[in-house]
């Protein structure tokens, strides 16, 4: 199954969850947030929510900024 994580095309096993996507890019579990197709996915739903083909996933954290 193909999805886009932070602008990069990636292949995940079919039935992959949001949590699998976070793992795939080596992101830590705290201090990050995930949006799938423009909607925030609460952390509690990461292991439950299965991704669909071509899902657009954004994994964000805090960086230096004014």
């Amino acid at each position, binding site marked *: 199954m193909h999805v886009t994580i932070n602008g990069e095309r990636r292949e995940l096993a079919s039935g992959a969850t949001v949590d699998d996507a976070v793992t795939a890019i080596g992101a830590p579990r705290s*201090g990050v947030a995930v949006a799938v197709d423009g909607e925030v996915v609460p952390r509690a739903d990461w292991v439950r929510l299965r991704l669909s083909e071509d899902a657009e996933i954004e994994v964000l954290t805090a960086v230096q900024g004014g």
Partner: protein
Amino acid sequence: MDLVIGDHKIGSRLVMGTGGAANLEILERALVASGTTLTTVAMRRIDAAAGTGVLDLLRKLGIAVLPNTAGCRTAAEAVLTARLAREALGTELVKLEVVADERTLLPDPIELLDAAEQLVDDGFTVLPYTNDDPVLARKLEHAGCAAVMPLGSPIGTGLGIRNPHNIEMIVEAAGVPVVLDAGIGTASEAAQAMELGCDAVLLATAVTRAADPERMARAMRLAVEAGYAARHAGRIPRRYWAHASSPDREQ
């Protein structure tokens, strides 16, 4: 008296942004010297190599985070970014920035007000970065914002406070804290903001891009304290002619 924004007691009247520091070590020294208890961060795609370095630093220093929506051009983008920040950082505080273009980085008032209304409805404590426009400031307050943060001049310009009278009018009318945000270049301008009646000053570039950020951070801390003290000490009226302070020689 402590500064209170929404339900948050803010221990320092200088709010420092983390943007622009060359590295985390320089940032750490500047943050400590500034005495700030609240600092801004931006939300960006995670870089696995950089990880969550700035958050780890702020946690170590015990400084609270104020996520911003920097880079957003529309209300929809800003609302999504604020929600992601709340999820990632566990705070409902947000510095709301919705800018019109890259060249001026001036707030887009229409998108800003729209985003503010949506975020207030969603339970956020909204601190909008706004133009130095008393009418827009009033509308943002009426929308339920917990503070208003007018610019002194465009972000990163160091041009100081271009329209002090507008800042005074905003202060005079506001029922929520006024935070002078953006444009400060040096300490006298931070003091001026406080003398005009602002409740706090938010700055980043003036410190982080100074030749000696740690020293400038300390200067800003002192300036904010001095300006606040002077404002509340009650300055003398301005006079046209001289007025001797020593007694007359005849007496």
